[in-house]
């Protein structure tokens, strides 16, 4: 099994096609939507993580390309500047997945589990010291 994080851009003319549904159904892929921007008559954007066998992922990507979806690997990443973080915990209640969490209730240290981060960026504006950053 492999996981790939992709940025998909849907031209407006395919907006009415059930592309993601078919991607899942026909190629046996597991997907997790990290970010979606869909507005009528405009290009749609979907950031997703696809998980499946290498073969199925390749077939799925080819299917997307055949449907005029442009694909870029996701190179974005949320990082914490360890020198800036004060462990105040302001971010913890805003992180929807628990990627930012209290490691130990005795010391109140704030942990950051990147594997749970869905790149929603909710932590960035609420961090009082600017410790959370997007990297591309």
């Amino acid at each position, binding site marked *: 099994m492999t996981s790939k994080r992709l940025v998909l851009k849907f031209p407006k003319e395919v907006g009415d096609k059930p592309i993601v549904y078919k991607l899942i159904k026909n190629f046996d892929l597991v997907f997790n939507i990290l970010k979606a921007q869909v507005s009528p008559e405009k290009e749609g954007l979907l950031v997703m993580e696809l998980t499946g066998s290498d073969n199925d992922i390749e077939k799925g990507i080819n299917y997307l390309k055949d449907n005029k979806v442009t694909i870029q690997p996701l190179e974005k990443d949320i990082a914490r500047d360890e020198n800036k973080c*004060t462990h105040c915990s302001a971010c*913890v*209640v*805003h992180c929807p997945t628990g990627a930012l969490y209290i490691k130990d209730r005795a010391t*109140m*240290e*704030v942990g950051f589990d990147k594997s749970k981060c869905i790149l929603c960026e909710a932590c960035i504006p609420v961090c*009082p010291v600017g410790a959370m950053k997007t990297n591309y």
Partner: protein
Amino acid sequence: MAKTYQEINEKIKKGKAVVLNAEEVIKLVEEKGLKKAAEEVDVVTTATFGPMCSSGAFINVGHTNPKMKITKAWLNGVNAYAGLAAVDLYIGATEIPDNDPANSKHPGSFSYGGAHVIHDLIAGKDVKLKATAYGTDCYPRKELEAKINIKNLNEAYLCNPRNCYQNYNVAVNLSPKPIYTYMGTIKPNLGNANYCSAGQLSPLLNDPLYKTIGIGTRIWLGGAQGYVYWQGTQHAPQGERGKNDVPIGGAGTLAVAGDMKQMKPEWIVGTSMQGYGVTLTIGIGIPIPILNEEILKYASVKDEDIFAPIVDYSSDYPNCKPGNLGKVSYAELKSGKISVQGKEVKTSGMSSYKKALEIANILKKEIKEGKFLLSEPVQKLPGPDSKERFKPLK
């Protein structure tokens, strides 16, 4: 057996003082009892590390040739108060640049302001000074642009009118919209509850009746040795207290000062509260001399015995509505969730317990090594029986 400041300082000088932080002392008192523990322990170190808006710095930039009586001044584009003698300036923590969009695109990000200037100065960075003046016979110069650096300033000291709040509100939002406050971003419909105190480590919670912390107390301020110079603004010692004399809500505050040239940038941090503004996160440590059992009893207070009021910041707080939505202990707040109006609400701190503990331990080490001596207050802070009351504008 009572001890004096002098006796404790003699032990510190000899490297023989027994020093514990305000967390460690809880366990010791539980194990040995108050009497025995009070005989053993000389000093308890307390600390806090959180945003404290009422802060700022006096700087003297030195005279130019020809001389100038500065009328208006900006440091990295942030207005500094110049209504003082010629080249004295005060840079306030919450000041934002003249051209900052502020909340015109709500919520504003407030990425740079006076607090960041103070941090940059302490970090040893060059800061751009721009100044104007009307000119006089003795001070003819009218314009100035220069780079300043803390190492070249005559004086640079923090002079904070209100720090170290004894206790504080827990902020929640009962409205259906997110709100952006000095207590952080609070999600709608009781989405989260934000608190701001180091609880059992916090200085004035460990000396609730100001028996040892007063005017003239030497403190650890941003890595340097500083002093309490007055009670802080809005000092309100008369409010509700628990049976343990610990205030339930705001109460006492401290005005503190210290030399920025001795401070470290990791303990004085420029801070941006989304949709609210700029503030300064400050590290403060205060030693409590264990003069007797009573002082130790206060200094061994636990999170579960310190309570804070839950206040709605969407309507009640801005509209000065008295009352609260209940009280919670810091033990509950630190557990990650509390119950408000029957709903489970997740909690976040605005003050860092982890950093407060680090400061308490640094101060402990400095005292043990004889580098930090205790000072007896020259004047007590107004206590619960004082007549001057914190009141609203009429």
